[in-house]
């Protein structure tokens, strides 16, 4: 069992027997190249509550090179019951530290590290050592700052949160994200005399595929959150715009104003504030309060475990896609409504 963490850094192209056996079922899905790229990637994950734990699990199982768990908060009974990595006797410890052991056991081949600092206190170059950064439970300002400084260095940026039955993820893969897609190979039809209309159709060989290279661009989080709704084009697209986008704006404002998310303990007070913020935010955007009916208040407290699982699954897979540069990324938001069971991908920002 000599391998694992003593592998040389940089481009090592050989997949060990152990990796081949363990990753077999995913190599058969996304290919060996993608697995190798994953295996060379370092990811920063901020926030180890329900959503963070799900993302951590998904990335560790996928086989990234390293995952840094960053969280400055302490374990409380509530936070411990929200996720499955923290042991039962860990109340009072740092959340990331408490999650470390179980996280590492998910896959010994990944270097799992812990950082107990507050993310706000980190200097710019801290982020540069990663290939992808995933922010959960962060303030809007922090997310905008990190996004700005990372995207220009081709560091992939992801944000995500779960509020009750609702959840979202956002991604900024930079101005030029390159990836490949596997498409069926088009083969020329045979020269049979009586092909008829078939002859005109290009035959697709179901067994052969080819890799097609593509490039796509993403806008910044700042642009995505500061869409101008007053122009005619934006207004006409309102009908097809998920209300979740506005819910996100409200919740981010709440987080900025109160320094925390809505709490069950202060349900009455918080729900009042949420309604007020809803009115303010929509008014500032020049939009009607009706876009986000009052009922939203009932469904956005705390983190529902199954919603964390869904959002964490989609978010985890987007990070895998971006790092492996394989398959079209979702662009640029994913919103999940756990009451309806609907999950939509939508683009906000400059086209």
């Amino acid at each position, binding site marked *: 069992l000599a391998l694992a963490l003593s592998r040389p850094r940089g481009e090592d*192209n050989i*997949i060990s027997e152990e990796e*081949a056996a*363990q990753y*077999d*079922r*995913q*190599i*058969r*899905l*996304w290919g*060996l190249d993608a697995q*190798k790229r994953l295996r060379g990637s370092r990811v920063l994950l901020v926030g180890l509550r*329900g959503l963070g734990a799900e993302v951590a*699990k*998904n990335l560790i*199982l*996928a*086989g990234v090179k390293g995952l840094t768990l960053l969280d400055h908060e302490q374990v409380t*009974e*509530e936070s411990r*019951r*929200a996720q*499955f990595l923290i042991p*039962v006797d860990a109340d009072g410890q740092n959340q990331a530290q408490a999650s470390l052991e*179980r996280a590492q056991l998910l896959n010994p081949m990944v270097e799992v590290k812990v950082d107990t600092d507050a993310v706000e206190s980190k200097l710019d170059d801290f982020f540069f050592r990663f290939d992808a950064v995933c922010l959960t439970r962060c303030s809007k300002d922090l997310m905008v700052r990190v996004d700005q400084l990372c995207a220009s260095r081709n560091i992939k940026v992801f944000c995500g949160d779960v509020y*009750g*039955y609702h959840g979202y993820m956002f991604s900024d893969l930079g101005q030029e994200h390159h990836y490949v897609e*596997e498409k*069926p190979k088009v083969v020329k039809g045979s020269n049979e005399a009586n092909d008829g209309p078939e002859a005109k159709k290009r035959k*697709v060989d*179901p067994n052969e*595929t*080819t890799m097609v290279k593509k490039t796509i661009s993403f806008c910044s989080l700042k642009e995505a959150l500061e869409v101008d709704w007053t122009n005619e084009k934006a207004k006409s697209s309102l009908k097809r715009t998920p209300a979740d986008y506005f819910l996100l704006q409200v919740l981010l404002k709440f987080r900025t104003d109160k320094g925390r998310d809505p709490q*069950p*303990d202060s349900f009455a007070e918080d729900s009042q504030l949420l309604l007020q913020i809803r009115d303010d935010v929509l008014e500032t955007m020049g939009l009607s309060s009706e876009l986000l009916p009052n*009922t939203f208040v*009932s*469904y956005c*407290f*705390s*983190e529902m*475990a*199954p*919603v964390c699982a*869904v959002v964490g*699954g*989609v978010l985890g*897979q987007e990070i895998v896609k971006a790092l492996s540069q394989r*398959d079209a990324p*979702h662009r640029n938001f*994913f919103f*999940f409504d*756990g*009451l309806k*069971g*609907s*999950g*939509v991908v*939508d683009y906000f920002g400059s086209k």
Partner: protein
Amino acid sequence: MRCYLDESYTIFSTIYANLIGLRKELADSLSSCRVLVVGAGGIGCELLKNLVLTGFKNIEVIDLDTIDVSNLNRQFLFQKKHVGKSKAQVAKESVLRFCPSANITAYHDSIMNPDYNVEFFRNFQLVMNALDNRAARNHVNRMCLAADIPLIESGTAGYLGQVTVIKKGQTECYECQPKPTQKTFPGCTIRNTPSEPIHCIVWAKYLFNQLFGEEDADQEVSPDTADPEVAWNPADAAARATASNKDGDIKRVSTKEWARSTGYDPVKLFNKVQLFKDDIMYLLTMDKLWKKRKAPLPLDWTEIHQLESSQEEAFGTGLKDQQVLGVQGYAQLFHRSVETLRSQLIEKGEGAELVWDKDDPPAMDFVTAAANLRMNVFSMNMKSRFDVKSMAGNIIPAIATTNAVIAGLIVLEALKTLNSDFDQCRTIFLNKQPNPRKKLLVPCALDPPNPNCYVCASKPEVTVKLNVHKTIVQALQDKILKEKFGMVAPDVQIEDGKGTILISSEEGETEANNNKFLSDFGIRNGSRLQADDFLQDYTLLVNLIHSEELEKDVEFEVVGDAPDKAPAPSVPEEGKNIANGNKDSAQPSTSSKAAAEDDDVLIVDSDEEPSSSTMEASPESSNRKRKHHDADTDATASKRKRLDQQPADDDEDIIALD
């Protein structure tokens, strides 16, 4: 939308803080209700985690399988040190570590064991499937109907997944819509005119069984002289057909006997069948076959080794298994694997049989080598061991994230179900890419029950077309009632006014009937049979239509069934075919997927060929007679226990109604 927070709302601040979205009564019912999770694999692990974190307290989980290293990329409750142990048991232990107050019971067993009768199911308020094969799904479907317990059904394959809710009398049951059956290939394609690698792989698996395993009349490997294409006129074909039946394959001895007689000499095998020389030369004499097809080129052992060897360089950066060797390489691999398998056979003693297992290296080597040599004979590009293993072993690619999403959706549906909010329940599809309406997760309304469903209708009835003079009772039991209609232990009586018992589920009682033809019992066109499965509390009336005009290789047809579908992909989500279904079949389960044009996604049975650590029963296929296994005879507790396993099926097209 009902508001979950009304005047009676009580805020949970201590224990169930993350249940804030739930009405008190619902939150209370979570801690008292009992749920059953069937399967502790990819979906099962994620589901157990979600259930306890959401507040479910009383959970029973059942799985017959043991842990394999290839599970570890997604079945996160297991670690390397657990390989070989019971999935249900280890899953329980892992969950208890982060939620010690959960009350979990684990069963290392098959859900089809008659111990789990209707009374057992009635203990639960909800059943959730986390299965990977159709047979078990059919069975649980019936048990839940019989017990009138809601069932949440789900499936994943690769990036795709699906969840749905089944409630007797309110929604479709799992069997309301006929599902496309496993794709199988006609005998003459396998034996005479293969045109795709998969045909060669199936042939190689048949060959394995003929040489080392349980011989099966439906798994012939030698040239088929009764191939309708061979003869010019029907009379000729009929004459050949009779000839081959009478002489047992035209004066050839059985493949196994012949092989034994040569001491399994690899060179002789190579040159014969088998393979690659004599039988091919025989095929060449059937010149009609090659008028429009490229003729096969026989291989000779000595000649191959005289050719300049085109040795591969060091395999570079790919997986070792992903190399494609040359003809010499596969000839050598054939040689080595035959010798190893021969020793295995000798070690096991007189009358021994080997069971093919994709994780047994010489067995996999043998199929890789034999299939590739045949591909070469028939001018196809050869395939790596990696690819052959996928096809031969029916491996479904799988990742953690798809299962995580689906398991999350299952719990959300579970919450609605416990609240009896069935009108809120949905079928939800997970796509790989958003549809034109931007949906990645597509919820669809549930359909009401099919009034003509042959399972959940009040008096289920079907019509089956077969030849009463050629169908034996055993085939009726195994291929029709068990495989096709999902019964586990059928009892059959003829509606002839006398209630003649044709089949009894009691071992041995009607054994004497097994090889008799249906017509021997006076069964003819228009006869009706009553088939019961008492465990499933299921009675099916079978109307028989006698026909002498069934297609070759087709033993029966269900009248009114949707035709077998192999939907053509218009915009395939992935370039590859997803292999799915059919746990133990020598036949593959390749399928092409319907495009996600709008909201179509396919629920998939992901049936792998089990590894040697789990496999007990012999391989089965939809095309051949099935071996009946009695679970009680499974001595080794650590191995996989199973009753009759039925081959799982293909993708099903589901149209979203949203």
